């Protein structure tokens, strides 16, 4: 293992305030694969690209810059586990670099607040950093291969797009997350419209729940048709969408059709690394993981 690198851990809103079990798994797993996390004290909402950027772009850019400035001051690159926050920081940095007058504008809003900012910091996604370490290197840590586990991989949108401002080799039909799932011993199963949106973003979940949940339902039906045991995602908002929508759909239908456990990638990896399910927050899921864990760990 190469020497550990330290990042400023940007939590965002949904992860610490709705799915702290996902946060817990990240805090447990990352240091074990050589990624040290520094607290980003005083960070705010990224702010959310679908809502706040849609309402007032200058406010979005100013607050995103403030969060980036906190990491820059700490001397680290920022790391996030949410695709929405990732999108915000990637797009904000691109805007500041392409248009120096926007950086001046942001600094005028910071005046007198003691927030130095040069926009030289970088923002990374947790899965990007894990991918940089590489599947082969990570695989060395796998002591409990998750044999027989069929997984629906969900990448999400802002992790991958706009492709001209993302680090991935390909612009579509990505495979990096599938490869990172494969090394855990689980099998990534193809399913219809795998790269489709979860339906949560853009302020749609916030303002039109029926449409939002119906998009999630389409994905969930495709996953059920493919016969998967679990969903693996890398975004706290997609995670929320799949967890909460399944409960909502079951309530509406009056039956238990939707019961696919939803794993954040670090929860899957942690399990394969031999970690205890409770350490990974797997006992705190909306859709119970228990029967799947019973099958996997006995």
């Amino acid at each position: 293992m190469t020497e550990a690198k330290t990042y400023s851990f940007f939590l965002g809103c949904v992860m610490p305030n709705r799915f702290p079990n996902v946060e817990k798994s990240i805090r447990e797993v990352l240091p074990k694969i050589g990624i040290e996390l520094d607290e980003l004290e005083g960070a705010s909402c990224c702010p959310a690209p679908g809502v706040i950027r849609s309402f007032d772009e200058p406010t979005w850019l100013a607050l995103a810059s403030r969060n980036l400035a906190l990491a820059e001051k700490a001397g680290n690159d920022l790391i996030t586990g949410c695709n929405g926050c990732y999108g915000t920081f990637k797009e904000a940095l691109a805007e500041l670099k392409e248009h120096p007058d926007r950086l001046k504008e942001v600094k005028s809003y910071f005046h007198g607040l003691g927030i130095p900012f040069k926009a030289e910091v970088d923002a990374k996604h947790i899965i990007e950093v894990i991918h940089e370490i590489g599947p082969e290197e990570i695989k060395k840590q796998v002591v409990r291969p998750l044999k027989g586990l069929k997984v629906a991989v969900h990448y999400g949108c802002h992790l991958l797009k706009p492709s001209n401002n993302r680090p991935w080799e390909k612009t579509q039909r990505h495979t990096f997350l599938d490869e990172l799932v494969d090394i855990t011993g689980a099998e990534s199963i193809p399913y219809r419209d795998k790269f489709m949106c979860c339906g949560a973003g853009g302020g749609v979940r916030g303002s039109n729940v029926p449409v939002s949940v119906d998009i999630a339902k389409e994905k969930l039906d495709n996953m059920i048709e493919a016969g998967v045991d679990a969903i693996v995602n890398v975004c706290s908002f997609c995670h929320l969408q799949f967890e909460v929508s399944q409960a909502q759909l079951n309530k509406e239908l009056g039956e238990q059709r939707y019961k696919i456990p939803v794993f954040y990638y670090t929860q899957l990896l942690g399990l394969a690394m031999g970690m205890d399910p409770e350490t990974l927050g797997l006992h705190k899921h909306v859709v119970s993981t228990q029967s799947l864990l019973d099958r996997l760990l006995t």
Partner: protein
Amino acid sequence: MNDSISRETIENESIDPDFVERIVEAGADRIRTCIQCGTCSSVCPSGRRTAFRTRELMRKALLGLKEEVLSSPDLWLCATCLTCLERCPRQIKVTDAIVIMRNMAVKEGFMLPQHRKVSKKLLQTGHAVPLDEANQEMRKELEIPEIPPTVHAHEDALDDVKEIMKRTGFDKLIQEEEGGEKE
């Protein structure tokens, strides 16, 4: 004519010739090259289940039908998945254009009540989704900081965030207008 077909006429006063120019200036610079091929609509996950048609929105924007575009709740059905932007054969930043039009809509007072609520949460707490009691309890059980080390744990940091939102005018923008809000 005595048939029952209602012909829709676009009146001159509905057309704002500067509308598309403002969208171009804000960054969706290739929108005029739209050929109405419909690729955007065909890949849209919201369009699959609603009457929202991205192509129609682009056409109306090009025609300058400002009031119709900005007042329509359809403008808020885009999940910003960026698939249309990736697939557009003219490389139009479709999603950016939608975000630009949403900014214009909010300035004109068109904001969905739930979105105003989210904005108020950001103004008050620095988070669009603030911590609640149940999750504070869960954090404690999980043995991670009971209050996350964000603005939730640092009042001075929250003051900075609030001050920035005052300076950008976000607080005023979100305030409900006298006599209720437009939708």
